[in-house]
């Protein structure tokens, strides 16, 4: 199975580990991520204002390119995922936005959100299946106690993201179980880490991060995983005394044995 793939700006630079191990693991699991020929940064924040049109265009272009290739569009970064999925929904439901985007791009064929947007984790859950993933694991991460850090963007607003239960998500815990480790559930796993404010106020970001770390540690987590480069940065750099944080794809690659192969 081949999917169109939107890596996004960060995965080409600071977030390489999310990208590299995601792609390598995909091959081991029997699917292929085909990077879109031309893609532009999604803008990293969803334009909430209805009159912001230009900031929606790069998402629409990516969506249309995947549509033309007859493929579903996969993202790994939770911010890209958030932005592209919500812009796609605008194209499905908001006539004014659809109309203005169409005129802006001079579209011959109208686009009304026909492309399916999937996060990599959704591919694992809904296309591959966690049971199948489990069977492909060669190095189960037995005994490791891992806390899933969801953050905001994968989950909310659930009416638009349709990713998982926003208050009691399970997808990352199921993933952790599939790779042979033990998931640690803690209350703050879906509370914002304050990443956007790291540029404005480190102190504020630190306060958020410390609360998350304290909670995760008290519940027995020894390490955390995330799908967001900004969360990873923030949880790592702004923690007073943090747990180690990795991308979920790094652990996936480890469990599938693709890390050794490439060494």
């Amino acid at each position, binding site marked *: 199975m081949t999917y169109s793939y939107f890596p996004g700006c960060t995965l080409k630079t600071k977030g390489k580990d999310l990208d590299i191990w995601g792609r390598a693991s995909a091959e081991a699991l029997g699917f292929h991520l085909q990077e879109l020929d031309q893609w532009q940064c999604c803008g*990293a924040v969803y334009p909430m*204002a209805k009159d912001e049109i230009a900031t929606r265009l790069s998402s629409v272009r990516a969506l249309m390119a995947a549509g033309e290739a007859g493929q579903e569009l996969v993202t790994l970064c939770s911010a890209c995922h958030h932005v592209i999925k919500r812009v796609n929904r605008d194209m499905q439901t908001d006539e004014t936005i659809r109309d203005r985007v169409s005129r802006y791009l001079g579209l011959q064929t109208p686009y009304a959100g026909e492309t399916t947007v999937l996060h990599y984790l959704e591919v694992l859950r809904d296309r591959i299946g966690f049971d199948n993933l489990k069977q492909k694991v060669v190095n189960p991460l037995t005994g490791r106690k891992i806390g899933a850090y969801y953050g905001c963007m994968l989950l909310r607003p659930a009416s638009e993201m349709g990713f998982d239960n926003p208050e009691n998500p399970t997808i990352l815990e199921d993933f952790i179980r599939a790779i042979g480790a033990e998931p640690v559930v803690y209350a703050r796993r879906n509370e914002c880490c304050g990443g*956007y404010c790291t540029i404005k106020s480190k102190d504020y970001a630190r306060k958020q991060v410390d609360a998350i770390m304290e909670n995760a540690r008290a519940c027995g987590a020894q390490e955390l995983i995330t799908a967001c480069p*900004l969360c990873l940065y923030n949880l790592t750099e702004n923690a007073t005394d943090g747990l180690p944080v990795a991308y979920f794809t790094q652990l996936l690659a480890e469990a599938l044995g693709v890390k050794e192969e490439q060494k």
Partner: protein
Amino acid sequence: MMDTIKRISGVNPRKCMKCGKCTASCPAFDEMEFHPHQFVDMVENGRIDQLMQSRGIDFCLSCFACVERCPRNVEPAKLIEAVRLAVVRQQGGDHLRPEAIPHLLDENLPQQAITAAFRKYRK
């Protein structure tokens, strides 16, 4: 101005039943001089100038906790975003300039943070 805010946010503040759940969910409420539920009320009552002058609006994390948990589907975050845009769209309203970027950077800061900051703090 009130109409502009309502139009670009698409929010009807009159749906709010003043339960305060948005503020209770908000990780940034301590940093904002007007908490999300007050914010909704102030838009409803046309106190936009006061909101535009409030520094606290930059601390909204766009985490959508208030949107998710509001029982009336008011979407307070969209109002905050609309007010923030009203500020940065003014002449000279930017408060992040490209010249300021280099000293904000450190070795590991992801591009995403910079792109997001540009989107949030300048037009």
